[in-house]
């Protein structure tokens, strides 16, 4: 088969894998949280049923062109992010389109979907949407600061902007992981990760008791279905990114599943323990401790490295 055709086939297969993986992670997490509450909880395949139900809705209401494009941008951000990250190191079909400068593009793509969503949800005109967007953008901008600093520190440490090369440099046991060789950058990155996953205590764009469901208030039926599928792709793409940057990547699918699941549970556990921040608290928090740790990591690895 032609080289590029094969790549496209691999990309689609890889996308199907990650979509299903994300759906199962969300379903299994809901089950585990329910068990922690002492409930039986929804079946692990509940996200699939919810998605199918959203698709099967017979009518949908929209508020203009940007309202349509919001979920499309969001999904583009999710798929674009995933397509730039090598999911499994050394695997031919899960290598995706990783290239030498992908780290910079990845930072951009994480924010891209959010901006599209902001425009789309803004057109819906619902006050909760506008409030959710304001909170979400302020908070995400703040959490990007320690994340960017952690990425700069990692790039300076490995002298590369390619995620594949960063993963390659971490092979050979747990002692080679960034977690061990650059704990400050890992700490800043993982604190930023808490904010980027938007779980409690950073679920302030959704704020279940104040501005229920936030930006997506007006989204319904198939628009919501797009967003539900993006939720699984985007979340698992971010998990894989953090696994690649700080936890040595993965050389097989089971290794990827175990590592990303543990990384995901880091934010679930934090969310179970801590109540929600207000937006100014969250912004201040990100700009204090995680940013300082990030600056320290950058200073150490640019001066000494």
């Amino acid at each position, binding site marked *: 088969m032609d080289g590029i055709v094969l790549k496209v086939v691999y990309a689609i297969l890889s996308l199907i894998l990650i979509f299903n993986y994300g759906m199962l992670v969300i379903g299994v997490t*809901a089950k585990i949280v*329910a068990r922690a*509450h*002492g*409930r*039986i*909880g*929804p*079946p692990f395949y*509940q996200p699939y*049923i*919810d998605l*199918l*139900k959203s698709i*099967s*809705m*017979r*009518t*949908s*209401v929209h508020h203009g062109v940007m309202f349509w494009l919001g979920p499309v941008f969001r999904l583009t951000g999710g798929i674009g992010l995933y397509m730039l990250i090598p999911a499994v190191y050394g695997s031919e079909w899960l290598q995706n389109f990783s290239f030498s400068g992908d780290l910079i593009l990845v930072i951009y793509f994480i924010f891209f979907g959010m901006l599209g969503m902001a425009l789309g949800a803004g057109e819906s005109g619902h006050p909760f949407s506008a409030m959710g967007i304001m909170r979400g953008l302020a908070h995400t901008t703040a959490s990007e600061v320690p994340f960017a600093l952690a990425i700069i520190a990692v790039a300076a440490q490995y002298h590369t902007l390619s995620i594949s090369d960063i993963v390659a440099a971490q092979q050979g046991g747990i002692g080679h992981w960034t977690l061990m060789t650059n704990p400050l950058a890992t700490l800043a990155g993982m604190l930023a990760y808490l904010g980027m996953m938007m779980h409690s205590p950073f679920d302030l764009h959704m704020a*279940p008791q104040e501005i*229920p*469901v936030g930006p*997506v*208030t*007006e*989204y*319904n*039926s198939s628009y*919501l279905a797009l967003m539900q599928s993006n939720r699984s792709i985007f979340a698992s793409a971010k998990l894989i990114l953090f696994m690649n940057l700080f936890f040595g990547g993965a050389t097989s699918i089971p290794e990827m599943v175990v590592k990303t699941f543990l990384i995901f549970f880091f934010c679930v556990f934090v969310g179970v323990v801590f109540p929600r921040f207000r937006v100014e608290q969250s912004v201040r928090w990100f700009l204090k401790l995680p940013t300082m740790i990030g600056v320290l990591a950058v200073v150490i690895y640019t001066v000494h490295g």
Partner: protein
Amino acid sequence: MDKEKDGVLATIEEARKSFNEQDYYCQELPKTVQPVANKIVRGFYNWAQANSLWILGFGTGCGSIELPPLFTPRYDVARFGIFPRPTPRQAGVFIISGYLSVKTLKRVIRSYEQMQNPKFVLGLGSCTVNGGMYFDSYNTINRLDYYLPVDVYIAGCMPRPEALMKGFETLKEQIRAGKAEGANHYVENLEWYKANQKQIIKDWDMPEYNW
């Protein structure tokens, strides 16, 4: 100075217009949408809709106190795929929990019409059946199905959460059998429903159909 005064007056004039005269709302009326023709796909969709019921978080009367226990470990309706949803755009099940005052009826209609087809209504408590203990109240409606198409009634004052769960079970059976076509029924008989609603709601300051 005069010009500014004119501007202010014009704004006040605009605001005095009724809501139907202002160009804020879509004035179109809804159409019925039939389910998918293919029998297998339709069955599959019905199954998905029965197993993913999103309740609109809108408690109208005292019966709404029966809803929170549903999500606790004792009853845990999440295992049946039932979740609360705060926005009518995404919700599929509207529980009218108990007596419905005239003021609330207006909000209920607005919320119901914002929900997407297919949508289902559960009448919880005797008040929705015949007025219950408020049958002679000046301020509540007596029969819910004059104003909204009701799929399942749950009688009692108040019904226990178990009764509510049985109601959900009945609703699921109806959805799976393809019999819960309340949304289409509402559209087909829109004139009758609107006439009934307007008898109760005297200050009708909203469009004919709230999209």
